[in-house]
């Protein structure tokens, strides 16, 4: 307690000016917080979120087929838990700090507490709350199992285990859209957070390789390739996404023969992909520029072909440098999916607008937008955390330079 007081004094009230500024800031923050809490607990009517929680989550996905989405969620959570455990089972040899096992356990406890409390706070039905609790247990168990037995996995085995994710992505596509014996659910029935995540993950996965190729094209010695890349990147970056989305809805149908013209949702997802690729190319280009010329020369003088030199020497360094910018792109891509609501797709924002248009929930915009903001923040925070963890894992310069 005494220590805390001393620290407060040193950090907030060191000089008179400091103290005055601190007091002003503290009172402003308190005012804001009190106002918000009063609104959240007295005026706000959270029924609009509770009643429509399924709508926000998956849109108008047919109720009798929703088990498929639960199954997909369970698979994703199991894979996440296993990945988490595997990463913990294989820490970088130079990074077995004292803190990580404790912090890791702390994260598990915190996550479990949130998962336990959130369904209660949202007043979800016991059936639904029970499922979420079950999923939490699944996560913890998978993490534990992978952490316990994953250490025995060879590097080749680890690479094989990583293949679970692309496979899971394809499985997820089938589960969502149907086929292979499952009832087809047409994309027009997809919506909510599911559609947001689907469109953004699709665009993120595909814009990455396209963006890298564009960045390489822009630095190529072949004039046609170079000018093509420049033209593409500059055109896309010069046009607002919303115009491109409208353009995509209108001309993709003409460009492709009738049967092949993708559904509206896929058209939008492709436009997002091509849009993000142009920005990603610039992020990757900045990374490529940061790799000294001597790296390519050294690789070439060792006999590596140009593609091999890129793959093993230049790109790993360039992408490491560009990683923060790349993830920044991914985060804005995720947020840009809200524009899909303007072309009539019922992703998270579109769904919210239909809910707010319902006379029963008139004037409940604050509650709805706040929920939306929290959901987006959660997704973006997860991306940001993941990227920072990856950065730390990849950075050989952050190593302790012990001799």
């Amino acid at each position, binding site marked *: 307690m005494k220590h805390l007081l001393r620290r407060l004094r040193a950090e907030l009230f060191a000089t008179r000016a400091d103290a005055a500024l601190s007091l002003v800031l503290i009172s402003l923050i308190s005012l804001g917080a009190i106002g918000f809490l009063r609104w959240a607990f007295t005026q706000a009517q959270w029924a609009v979120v509770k009643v429509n929680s399924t709508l926000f989550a998956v849109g108008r996905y047919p109720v009798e087929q929703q088990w498929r989405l639960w199954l997909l969620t369970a698979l994703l959570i199991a894979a996440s838990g296993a990945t988490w455990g595997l990463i913990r089972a294989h820490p970088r040899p130079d990074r077995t700090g004292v803190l990580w096992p404790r912090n890791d356990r702390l994260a598990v406890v915190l996550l479990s507490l949130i998962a336990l409390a959130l369904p209660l706070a949202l007043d979800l039905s016991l059936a639904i709350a029970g499922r979420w609790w079950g999923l939490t247990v699944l996560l913890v168990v998978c993490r534990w199992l992978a952490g316990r037995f994953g250490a025995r996995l060879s590097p080749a085995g680890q690479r094989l285990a990583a293949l679970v994710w692309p496979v899971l992505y394809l499985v997820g596509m089938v589960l969502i859209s149907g086929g292979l014996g499952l009832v087809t659910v047409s994309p027009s029935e997809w919506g909510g957070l599911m559609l947001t995540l689907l469109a953004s993950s699709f665009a993120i996965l595909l814009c990455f390789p396209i963006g890298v190729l564009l960045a390489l094209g822009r630095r190529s010695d072949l004039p046609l390739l170079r000018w093509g890349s420049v033209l593409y990147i500059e055109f896309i970056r010069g046009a607002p996404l919303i115009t491109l989305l409208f353009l995509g809805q209108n001309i993709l149908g003409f460009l492709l023969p009738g049967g092949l013209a993708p559904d509206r949702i896929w058209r939008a997802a492709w436009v997002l992909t091509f849009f993000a690729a142009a920005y990603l190319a610039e992020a990757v280009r900045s990374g490529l520029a940061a790799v*000294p010329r*001597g*790296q390519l*020369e*050294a*690789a*070439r*003088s*060792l*006999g*590596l*072909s140009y593609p*091999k030199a890129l793959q*093993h*020497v230049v790109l*790993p*360094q360039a992408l*490491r440098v560009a990683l923060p910018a790349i993830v920044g792109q991914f985060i804005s891509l995720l947020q840009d999916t809200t524009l899909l609501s303007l072309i009539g797709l019922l992703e998270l924002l579109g769904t919210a607008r239909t809910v707010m248009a319902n006379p029963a929930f008139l004037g409940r915009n604050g509650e709805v937008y706040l929920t939306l903001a929290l959901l987006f923040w959660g997704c973006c925070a997860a991306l940001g955390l993941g990227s920072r963890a990856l950065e730390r894992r*990849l950075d*050989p*310069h952050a*190593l302790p*330079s012990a*001799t």
Partner: protein
Amino acid sequence: MSQPSSELMIEARAVEKWYPNGFQALRGANLTVRRGEVVVIMGPSGSGKSTFIRTFNALEDFQKGSITVDGIVLSNDLRNIDAVRREVGMVFQQFNLFPHLSVLDNLTLAPVLVRKRPKAEVEQQAWALLERVGIAEQAGKYPGQLSGGQQQRVAIARALCMEPRILLFDEPTSSLDPEMVREVLEVMQNLAAEEITMVVVTHEVKFARHVAHRVVLMADGEVVEEAEPEVFFTNPSHQRTRRFLDQIL
């Protein structure tokens, strides 16, 4: 000192090179290097010596003349270029180690990818090479954790791991702190005692005197003087060489 054989490893004839900005870096440079020979190239900065040895493994192209390396004629044929690069190792002024790979992986990358040799076997060889250049205990570290002298020794070991028949050195000690120059020169001197052919661009007079079979002076994109070290440093036949030696000795 081993005696070079009569077999020609590098034969450069009247090589001329222009940079895209119109500057002519090489104006008919000639050089022949025999197997097992150690040739030191000296010369003022801007004389084209770095450009010249970089043409030997096709890091620089040239417009006129001809270069034959280990029997392979350098041309625009990409297959030839790859073949030449497999036989010619290069050590750079700036080391150019791969910072994202451990020291050991720096050595094994190319033999595994290019020569398709089994990783375990290459690693064994890499350990032996690191032992030879005196840094085996650093194998697990990253280049950023090593001193300049250590990095350059790793770079030499990396080039050797491809088992090249020719090693090119482009000012290998020029960006080192003075106290680290010797450890690198010692490694190079030990190498010179073996079969390997070496072409070294350097300003290290002592190295040129005691290790080289032949010393070459380049000026203005041409080879001006070519002589045994003793003759080169005491009784050069060209005025240009004398002027250069006056400046550096």
